[in-house]
């Protein structure tokens, strides 16, 4: 008998950027409301993250070694610096799915 495993639900802690904090105080509700998310992989070098022993195990960073935004987690992550940005966006969605947008298209609304 087959079964469908539940998807892993990962709990993460997020921190406001300087722009996010500024919008909370000075912006409109639309400017401070979270509407979209991106998924990124800036901490992976796929030239290294290869299969290492013939099975599914990959040579990826172990737990705790994914670098934070700025140095030591406890001291620095809560002060996300001005101008922080993202790179290496993940992609892939059904064409025409209205739930998907791009940053570039949204920027034109400003």
């Amino acid at each position: 008998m087959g079964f469908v495993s539940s998807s892993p639900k990962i709990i993460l802690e997020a921190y406001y950027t300087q722009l996010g904090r500024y919008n909370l105080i000075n912006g409109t509700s639309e400017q401070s409301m979270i509407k979209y998310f991106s998924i990124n992989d800036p901490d992976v070098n796929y030239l290294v993250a290869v299969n290492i022993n013939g099975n599914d195990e990959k040579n990826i960073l172990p737990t705790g070694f994914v670098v934070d935004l700025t140095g030591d987690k406890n001291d620095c992550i809560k002060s996300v610096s001005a101008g922080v940005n993202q790179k290496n966006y993940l992609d892939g969605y059904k064409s025409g799915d209205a739930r998907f947008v791009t940053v570039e298209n949204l920027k034109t609304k400003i």
Partner: protein
Amino acid sequence: MSTLKQVENSGEVIFQKTVSKLGEKTLSGSDLKFTFCNLEDLTVRPYGNLFSSFNLPITNNQRTSFLTNNTFYNGGRKENAFKNLLLDSNNNFINKIVVAEIPQNQYGELIDGKTIEIRVPIISGGTPINITSYGTYFGYKTTMNNSFSDTNNESSYFGIKPSSNVDGNSNIAYLFSNEISKPKIKTSSTKILVSSYTVNSPININQKIDNTVLFNLEVGKYYSFEVDLGVRLSNLLISATGGAILQTNDDIGNQSKTSVRTSNVKIEGNDIPSIRVRITTVNSYTGPPLTLTVNIYETTVIQDTSWSKWTNSNKFPSQPGVFNGKPYANFTDTNNSGLLIDEPVGIAYLDKGFCVFTHPTIVDNFNFSASTSSGYDNIVSGATYSGDTNFTQVYFNSPSQSYIKYDSITTEFVQSIMAIAMPNEFYISKNPTFEEVYGVNGVNNITNDPVYITEIGLYNEFGELIAIAKTSEPIAKTKANIVSFNIQLKL
């Protein structure tokens, strides 16, 4: 292109309040400093200002209000534990306190009052001893294990009003010490008639009857005096005086009673056992002449030994009447004897980060000569304190002399955001190394190797990066699997 997907609960901005415990903290040595404050020192040292900071009654109006407001202390049968907190043994307001400062960076938003254990050194009978005090609350409430501070309205005098807006917290806890007064919660009192006499002179309007009678009263014992009127009468005063200290009275005011009883008085060593009992009527009395009986009772305190110590346990009993775990304190005396009221030695200001000792046993006997200077009072920092009783920011090198333990808490407001990557979503990377291995858009990824998620960005509808989260390890995402994130965004 930088692909974004709509979050599952888009349009909701609901922050939930969460309270986090930051764990137990122990401070000693130079992390725990003490300062003496004297309200009567108006010009030399500025620390009398702290009486205002800690909402202690200063002016005559404040003190009169404190004494006459039934909420706080009104003497006699209405007296409560604030008497023991703010009045000395001669019923004068205390003018001196010792303040222990918990540095700002050593606790979160609030200290959990029921977890406090603080030790200070004093001199007792010429010998150095250490006094350990514990934080606790007055009375029993089913919610007290979840409270970080005393939840009684009376505590608003020193802290904040414990309303539902602040989860019932006053931000105040009270300190009690076994070396000074053990818990009286399971203690009971009983009165035994030891003597009585009858006033032979009938009492008339505005008549004062003084009877000085020699009773065989014993030093160290408690007595009360009761007048049995025989009929109901209002506005009648009974007072009993004797020796240097013994003095008690009770006025039934406009109440109509058939008897009047004084509060308990303890016979001290310099009292004389000659007691003058005075009975005074104030208002008009039109009834027939009265014959009054005066009874003298000895009040006996029965100390229960099963729950007889303040402890460092942080858990109160599960229900009233069950006596285990952490003792709570008696604010008033249900027997009206006044003997079952607990005796606080100080107040912990949980949001301000200060413990304030008010009890004269600690304040007057503080062992400052064993302390170390931190550079105040014209004494070199690190040198043994050589000044007088006006010590400032002194500390004790040995944790056996001085320490404080407590749990601290912090409150956060968290918005939960659900971000779900379904099959056929977010399986292609723009990472240059991905494109190097698998080709642009992963066209060569014929084995369906995963991409590895290490970062989530949260955007507003204008494409502005509002918040950012990192994973603790790379999370695999293939074309076929589902990955969901519950993102906690904290204010």
